[in-house]
């Protein structure tokens, strides 16, 4: 019996000595250029963090390459960020330039700090999940290729955080991103009655539906879906493999905007629906890439300095946003779930 419940390695074992010495006693930081942070401790000691973009889905050999560089320039220490970038932790100033050169030579981007686009938080998609409405890594690659300049250069009004989740479960937590790409199903699950009778309990499946669209079909020892009430959330599929929700003809991608997480200036905000549907068009999802790019550009063109996407939209009003972004407003944009009412406009204040 192997030991259990010993927990993750203690973080202290993983920290470079300069950090251990100055732990909790950092004084300030500067961004020297995109991807290069300098933190200065009260002691006067300094640490440089070189942020490098990663595809996140990486091979062991990739990690070993990272280790090689970290051994060479960082005394064997490296970290990853909460958005899956790599951070090389450099203490010797003179190591910065050669490290960056080697990184670039590998085709890895340096950037993602300050008013840059950072790495896209994303999910599994067709690589590993059983319920995706779209792929994850493929769209991410296509979008990041197109927006590459915004990662390596700082030329946006503010931070830009794009995320992707391949189904409504939203593992990428796209619900609070400046721009979110979300895989959506658009047709009700098709019930495999035989399978259901075999593997699922009817009350569990019935109870799984948030809109009450599922009712028992005792004859078939299965269930039936009231298609009018189904909003394709896929929760029944999570509960039962017999409720197949993937649909190659109708699955696709929706685009959301204006979310943010930080409490800086404005309270955190949810991302809100911009484009209800774009088709799955692998391998490069041109419609999605184009739509995201347009959104970035319309924001970059119109926002004031320091205004996150959502802050900009809230200032100009969503009606103006739809106009500027040239996106049609449809009945799909109007909430009709539990908390819809507080989103309805209860004032005559609006722009034409």
């Amino acid at each position, binding site marked *: *019996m*192997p*030991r*259990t*419940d010993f*927990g*993750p*390695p203690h*973080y202290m*074992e*993983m920290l470079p000595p300069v*950090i251990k010495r100055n732990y*909790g006693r*950092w004084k300030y*930081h500067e961004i020297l250029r995109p991807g290069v942070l300098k*933190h200065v401790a009260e002691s006067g000691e300094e640490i440089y*963090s070189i942020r490098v*973009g*990663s595809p*996140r889905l*990486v091979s*062991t050999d*990739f*990690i*070993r390459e990272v*280790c090689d560089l*970290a051994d060479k320039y960082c005394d064997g220490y*490296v*970290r*990853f*960020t*909460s958005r*899956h970038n790599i951070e090389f*932790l450099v203490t010797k100033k003179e190591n910065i330039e050669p490290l960056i050169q080697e990184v670039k030579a590998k*085709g*890895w*981007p340096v950037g993602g700090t300050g008013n840059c686009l950072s790495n896209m938080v994303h999910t599994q998609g067709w690589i*590993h999940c059983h*319920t995706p409405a779209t792929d994850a890594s493929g769209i991410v*690659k296509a979008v990041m*290729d197109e927006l*590459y300049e915004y990662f390596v250069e700082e030329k946006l009004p503010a931070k830009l955080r794009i995320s992707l*989740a391949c189904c409504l*479960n939203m593992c990428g*937590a796209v619900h609070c991103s400046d721009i979110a790409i979300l895989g959506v199903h658009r047709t009700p699950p098709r019930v495999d009655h035989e399978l259901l009778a075999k593997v699922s309990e009817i009350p*569990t499946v019935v109870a799984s539906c*948030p809109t009450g669209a599922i009712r028992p079909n005792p004859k078939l020892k299965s269930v039936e879906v009231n298609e009018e009430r189904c909003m394709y959330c896929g929760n029944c599929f*999570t509960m039962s*493999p017999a409720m197949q929700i993937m649909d*190659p003809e109708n*699955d696709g991608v929706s685009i959301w905007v204006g979310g943010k997480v*930080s409490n*800086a*200036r404005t309270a955190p905000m949810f991302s809100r629906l911009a484009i209800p549907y774009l088709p*799955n068009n*692998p*391998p*490069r999802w041109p419609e999605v890439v184009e739509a995201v790019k347009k959104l970035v550009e319309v924001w970059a063109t119109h926002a004031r300095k*320091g205004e996150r996407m959502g802050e900009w939209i809230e200032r100009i009003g969503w009606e103006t946003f739809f106009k500027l972004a040239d996106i049609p407003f449809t009945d799909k944009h109007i909430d009709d779930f*539990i908390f819809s009412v507080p989103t309805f406009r209860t004032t005559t204040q609006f722009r034409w």
Partner: protein
Amino acid sequence: MANAQTPRVDELEKGPWPSFVKEIKRAAEKHPSAGDLLRQLDLSYAEKIGHWKHGGIVGVKGYGGGVIGRYSDKPEEFPHVKEFHTMRINQPSGWFYTTEALRKLCDIWDKYGSGLTNFHGSTGDIILLGTTTGNLQPCFDELSDAGFDLGGSGGGLRTPSACVGPARCEFSCIDTLDVCHSLTLEFQDFLHRPQWPYKFKIKVSGCANDCVASIARADFAIIGTWKGAIQIDQAAVADYADAGLNIQEEVVEKCPTGALAWDGEKKELKLKAEDCVRCMHCINKMPKALRPGEQRGATLLVGGKATILKSAFLGWVIVPFMELKPPYTELKDLLRRIFDWWDENGKNRERIGELIYRVGMRTFLKAVGLPPVPQMVFRPRANPYVFWWPEEVKRNA
């Protein structure tokens, strides 16, 4: 080699951003499963549909979670991904590594798995992507020898995570890494042996910038904050002004509560401390000049989650301020009371936020022994549907 067989995904080798397809191909050189993965993906690209079967429960001895079972629905075509389970490995707090530790991980994974990983999963785990049922136990055994334990999955505590915090950030008001590590150790049973109605996530950010998105992605968010006035170094403020920062426009006018005023003549920044809501903006803009106040602690929020089922929630303030000093007894006690109450009252697949919504905040507060305070709400209720506890009214005949 996968090459000619995967014309669609091959397109994704092009372009400036590093390519996951190249990574899969690299792994495929050693691991046939990676090759089959790519071929199956290419089929998905052709057909616009996934090719994994629904779920499947697999695991390692002594654990109820930490492994996501996955089976191809085309096992004949792609035999090497017939079984292709993911192992979630609990990352060290703050995602710091020695290269030694990383190399060990890679070696083990090359021995037992596909050679593919996510660094990291979006909950924060190290994701070891794809192995067979038979390899799970030996792989775990070696990982365990190397000091790596499993992360969470299923209806239990999920792997907590923390921002870089005091390790490299001057803003951190709490020891995020230690809080995260300490809670992980304390509640490992819940992490490794899921026993609750649904998942429960904890994330720890050192300040209101919330660099681990705890307010959006954790059922329980711990966010550093302070009491007392921001510490201002007026000389350093003046330096920012001299260096060209437009303090009036970029700092003062963006303060959400108008707590700041800029005297351009005297080059003095004035703060109405009682109006500051600690949003971090001014500090973010002038880290050399401004620092959080001296009395440090954390705001605790509950209920954050994604969209299933009652729509996404952002976390709700339940404790405006708690001091956080090891061994974090007050925090752990509170968490335990919360776990207990949720475990007892939650329905299957009901996140804690949804339970609170269903039964009312007042029931939650009473159960876990927290006093109601106005910081818990943006604004008080607008409907008159107030409940009274039986002891608060006179008994009727």
